[in-house]
């Protein structure tokens, strides 16, 4: 599998703030990769390093097989970038900006530009400040999706879009993947990530805490089980991987590490099962686990620099 992006042990400090503290990231060519993390965890810093706008203090980054700092222009010919907060020139119309960005990249497909303008319901004749936030995002999105590039770097691209436009956005990303393009999608909208992404990386305090397909990640977390049994439950508390056991008569609720689910089901079966629901963890839960109870402690009160060595990637 060829890699569109490889990042290894990336470090970046701004004064005394350690924005990135050994971040790793692997994005395979042709995949949609979700890039998740709390505010201030270093997502945008990473993206700005990948775009060659910031120079990393240590570590390596390769984008489309090249060094994004040294070969910025060559790399950028094959990248389209959408920032989370698009600023436009007040005296240029949206259409002018779309065409400008397209030409400054590898070129623009005029048919696709027209089609996208229509689909996003964008009025390209309005000028800079008269666009709302969502419409400014659309200008950058149309320019990105209509550009002839291999990699799309989207940094919280849908902030300000309404749910209908969010739908359009998701369809566009799927079309991009179907054409074999790679997408790095930084987002806080977990539904979007769950819907679109083949793999995700979760970062926190400037380093990667988890990376893999959603199935992989689910496997690492707990499944919620609630059951009504024919007889009294026995021995559940002794089983490995069982948490938050709550027994009320013949009703049982528990959390279990997903790879220990087999043992729990067998033990429940011994008592006779009347009804059973099991709920796989949502991305939300997965995410909250890392946001709240991650290795750095709740709220990330420990500075990223001070937590060196305490961070473990669960295996």
């Amino acid at each position: 599998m060829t890699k569109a992006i490889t990042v290894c042990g990336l470090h970046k400090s701004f004064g005394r703030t350690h924005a990135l503290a050994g971040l790793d990231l692997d994005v395979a060519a042709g995949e949609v990769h979700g890039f998740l993390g709390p505010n201030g965890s270093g997502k945008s810093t990473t993206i700005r390093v990948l775009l060659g706008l910031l120079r990393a203090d240590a570590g390596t980054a390769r984008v489309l097989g090249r060094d994004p700092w040294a070969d910025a222009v060559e790399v950028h010919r094959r990248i389209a970038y959408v920032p989370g907060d698009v600023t436009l020139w007040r005296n240029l119309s949206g259409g002018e900006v779309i065409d400008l960005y397209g030409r400054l990249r590898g070129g623009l497909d005029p048919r696709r530009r027209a089609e996208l303008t229509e689909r996003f319901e964008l009025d390209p004749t309005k000028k800079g400040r008269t666009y709302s936030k969502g419409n400014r995002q659309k200008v950058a999105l149309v320019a990105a999706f209509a550009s002839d590039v291999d990699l799309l770097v989207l940094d919280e691209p849908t902030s300000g879009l309404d749910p209908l436009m969010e739908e359009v956005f998701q369809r566009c990303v799927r079309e991009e993947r179907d054409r074999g393009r790679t997408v790095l999608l930084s987002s806080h909208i977990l539904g979007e990530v769950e819907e679109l992404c083949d793999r995700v990386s979760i970062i926190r305090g400037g380093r990667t805490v988890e990376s893999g397909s959603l199935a992989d990640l689910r496997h690492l977390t707990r499944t919620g089980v609630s059951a009504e049994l024919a007889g009294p439950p026995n021995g559940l508390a002794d089983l490995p991987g069982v948490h938050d056991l709550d027994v009320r008569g013949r009703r049982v609720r528990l959390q279990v590490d997903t790879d220990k689910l087999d043992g729990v089901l067998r033990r429940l079966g011994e008592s006779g099962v009347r009804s059973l629901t099991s709920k796989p963890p949502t991305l939300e839960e997965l995410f909250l686990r890392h946001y709240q109870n991650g290795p750095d402690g709740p709220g990330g009160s420990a500075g990223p620099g001070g937590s060196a060595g305490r961070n473990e990637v669960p295996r």
Partner: protein
Amino acid sequence: MTTLAGPASGRSRQLAGTGILLRLALRRDRVTTPVWVAVNALMVLSMPGTLRGLYGTTAERVGLVHQVEGNASFRALIGPVFGTSVGALTVWRVGVYAAALAAATSLLVVVRHTRDEEESGRQELVASGAVGRRASLTAALLAAAVADAALALLVTAGLAGLGAGGALAFGLGLAGVGMVFATTAAIVAQLTESARLARGLTAAVLAAAFVLRAAGDSAADGGASLAPGTGAGSSPLTWLSPLGWLENLRPFADERWWVLALFAAAAAAQAVVAYALAGRRDTGMGFLPTRPGPAAGRLGTAGALARRLQRGGVLGWSIGFFLAGVVYGGLTDGAADLVRDNDSARRIVERMGGRSGLTDAFLASTTGMLGLIAALYVVASVLRLHGEETSGRAEPVLACAVGRLRWAASHLTIAFGGSALIMTLAGLGFAVGRGEEVLPVLGACLVQLPAVWVVGAVAVLLYGLTPRLAPAAWGVAVAVLLIGWVGPALDAPRLVLDLSPFGHLPKLPGGAMRWTPVLTLTGLAAALTAAGLAALRRRDLAG
């Protein structure tokens, strides 16, 4: 809880939060406004000393007045004289310019705290607080009033030694002009959706006021009277311009105090209009609609983008420099006559412009002055890079296949090439104004360029090192301006004059062309620019 909100409390609610917003405005302006006011006061308060040095005796001053009042171009450019006292001459020499500066200070303050806030979207958050509908505009006008009151206080206190009444009239007159333009800006800020346009339109009103006054004064047929209060006065045209009211107030020449009521009435009337307009529109909207643009664009390169962004600025500077050339060119011969009879004045012009013929010296000093002003253009133009970067507009451009050097070069071409363009136009303007040969005066304008470029290159270097340093380039430009402008009049030591690149230029026309300093400065500009670009390529982009 009461439902009895009477009209009084309704009105007071319109102003709720004004105090907090005023404190916010003063805090945000804590550096810029004091600098504007201090520079203005310094210009006014240094004048009596300069005049005493040049025209120490009453006889010398009477001689000066006789000459200037017969010269229409002088009356147009500076204004009429109403007395031979040092105070009256001070008001004559700097009055209009101090008033214009006070007007500029006020209009910038008002637009910054009204339309700028709305355009940036910050106003929305502020207005959603417990803030009355009229609070923002009131706070902005009060912030301008604070600046104008400070200026009035400094001028009155500083000139009180020349006559308390005249000093007070002058101080209040300057503050009055400031407040008239503050309220003009308040109206214009309601009309446009763009702060830049609001500033431009108000500045245009200011320029029109200057032209009206100049036209009135030049038409006044030697209207100045040496005997104060004998009634000969300015043409009616000057009463149409707030800048003309200041001379009609006649500080230090039997003050006509009632003119102050004109300032108050005009400011009050304009404020009423501004409040009425503000009450009839939505936040963020204006009365002048934004026209739609093309659905498809032709811009395709970083260079085309930079040209599009800077073309308005270059056009404005070009027109201004050409007209300045025409005006100064037309003034040259009269000015040379004026200076010929006064030893000390002649020495100053010679220090600025060289020792050959007086006309050449005057030309050299005025082209030098335009060169100093062109340094402001080059800094503004170079710092467009800074504005693009810190606003976040540079980031998506540089994330395209545009190298940093090419992006920077696209703006620097306009900065350095544009300064050559405006100096060329100034030279052509001089030739038109004087109706004489083009080449000598064109050469005098173009010889300024290496020094202009050095200032621009310093701006490139500061910006390249870190965007935080970039605004310091304005400090460099202003320092160079002060050295070039005030240095010769104060007979500053060579060491200080040499700090400015302009101090090393040959004095053309008249003086001998020396290539060494010209080439050295050009090389220095190139080296500093290269260093700035190298630093820019190595540093992080501000996010």
